[in-house]
């Protein structure tokens, strides 16, 4: 890949009281992509993010963000990175606008510039009409959105989002995901963590699956699903009234079929694409009465589960 790598960790390790939370993690995120850090609770996602930001010191190993060592030069990293914590909180006595203003001031953004930016980001997260409501009155979903605005207001080169969709309703999740997807188009790299797969699948170009602090698998989504499902992406089940070895042979010859397995009257077929039409034709041509045909597409979910069993 010719893409510039902007986040890189080398054997990043964190131990809390003898427990390995992050274990020799090697992570690579290319510029302007959305990278999903996946894993069950306690896999070390949050700790990894904290180490990327220099908020937690690694036990050993290094993390680099845009070439800056996160442990040695945390301020440079923090200038470029926006972080949304898992449990985001705001000053309840301040309004949404004032909360953002404070963050803008901490980033030494001028007053005129910040006013424009705040207006813009509140608009982007759909909270323009709530700008002057105090944060104490916000629901969980509102706070999450304000949290995203909080990340955007400093115009980060990289946004590190810890569970950005946690606690949101389906509509809220969709809005946030759309927003995240649009970020990478405007020149922001996104690293997000989640344990919900379909979200990651929707917006991420690359993923890394963490399990017990170790990177189980890392790579672009397309490539991963290809690798993980070497046996074919689709699984088709064909039930006929009787078993027929000849049929198995015919189906096996269709291009794109990986494997055919017979269990009595049931044929289990792995294929690269949806070959139901071809299979149906083969069944009919071989004069075996067809009872039913089912297809199952393998998504990241299965990959995820597959690796989790291994992990």
């Amino acid at each position: 890949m010719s893409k510039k790598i902007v986040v890189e960790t080398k054997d990043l390790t964190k131990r809390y009281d003898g427990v390995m939370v992050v274990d020799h993690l090697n992570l690579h995120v290319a510029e302007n992509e959305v990278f999903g850090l996946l894993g069950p609770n306690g896999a070390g996602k949050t700790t990894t993010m904290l180490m990327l930001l220099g908020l937690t010191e690694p036990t050993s190993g290094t993390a680099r963000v845009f070439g800056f060592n996160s442990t040695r030069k945390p301020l440079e990293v923090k200038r470029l990175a926006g972080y949304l914590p898992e449990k985001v909180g705001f000053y309840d006595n301040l309004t949404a606008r004032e909360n953002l203003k404070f963050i803008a001031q901490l980033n030494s953004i001028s007053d005129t510039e910040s006013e424009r930016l705040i207006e813009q980001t509140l608009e982007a997260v759909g909270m323009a009409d709530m700008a002057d409501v105090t944060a104490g009155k916000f629901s969980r979903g509102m706070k999450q959105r304000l949290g995203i605005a909080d990340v955007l207001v400093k115009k980060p080169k990289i946004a590190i989002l810890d569970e950005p969709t946690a606690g949101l309703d389906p509509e809220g999740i969709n809005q946030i995901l759309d927003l995240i997807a649009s970020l990478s188009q405007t020149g922001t790299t996104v690293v997000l963590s989640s344990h919900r797969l379909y979200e990651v699948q929707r917006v991420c170009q690359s993923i890394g699956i963490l399990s017990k602090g170790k990177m189980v698998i890392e790579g672009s989504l397309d490539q991963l699903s290809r690798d993980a499902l070497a046996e074919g992406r689709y699984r088709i089940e064909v039930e006929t009234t009787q078993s027929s070895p000849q049929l198995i042979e015919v189906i096996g010859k269709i291009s794109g079929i990986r494997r055919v397995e017979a269990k009595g009257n049931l044929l289990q077929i792995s294929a690269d694409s949806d070959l139901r039409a071809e299979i149906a034709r083969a069944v009919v041509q071989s004069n075996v009465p067809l009872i039913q045909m089912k297809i199952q597409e393998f998504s990241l979910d299965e990959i995820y589960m597959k690796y989790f069993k291994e992990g």
Partner: protein
Amino acid sequence: MITILRKELADYFTSIRCFILFLLVILASAAGLYAAYQGIRGAGSGTSFVFLRLFITSGEVMPSLVTFLTLFVPIIGIALGFDAINSERSSGTLNRILSQPVYRDSVINGKFLAGIVTLAIMIAATMLIVSGYGLRMIGVAPSAEEIIRLFIYFVFIIIYGAFWMGLAILFSVLFRRIAVSLLSAIAVWLFFGFFYINMIVPATAKTVETALMLMRLSPNTLLGEATMVLLLPQWRGVGLLTAGEEITSYMLPNPLSLGQSILLVWPQLTALIALTAICFAVSYVVFMRQEIRAT
């Protein structure tokens, strides 16, 4: 740091907590004035430093303004600092701020400074209210020396307040729960205010010297002595000038000069600053090394 200082100040001045504290200040000023009004005719006659008497004269039932301040300033200090760090931690704002390009120490410095500014404004308000109304009441203008003495006293009481605020901030760094940090700060205050001098010191010290030494570990004693020396120039404290009580009776009741008074309270000032610095330094170091995770 200036940004954090500004925000904290804005927070303090708009909070209900601060409103209550200001009420307390006004109440203390009124009570102190009333006490001076009751007592000043008898006590002030024939001596110099009449203006200073406004602050240290107690009435028939009402204690003096200085007593009020000694009592309230720790409360104000604790009230300003007890949830400085742990409330930010529990509300999840701490890691949001720390992920911004600011040094971690500017957070705690900003909070501490904002507290001191608030404290200074409150104490200055009290002293000015009393001075103003007192001036009307007694009709004697303060001399330059009296103003300087009052100013040094002002510095003292701010440092005293800063000590309690530093202690409260320390507890807010150490303890995750706000109730625990508040109660610990109050416990320390009660300990020094009531138990230490009245029970612990008499029980442990064998000689007057050790008793004095032990007493001076308490910030209350340090402030008490400094107050007397500064605001009551005729006062001869035990062990301040003299080692024992027997000499005191031979001394002329002449007021000490300003320079001599300052010289006398210098150790107290240093000790108070040291105590404050220790509190602040410990909370600083602990905070710098602390994990930021919310959980």
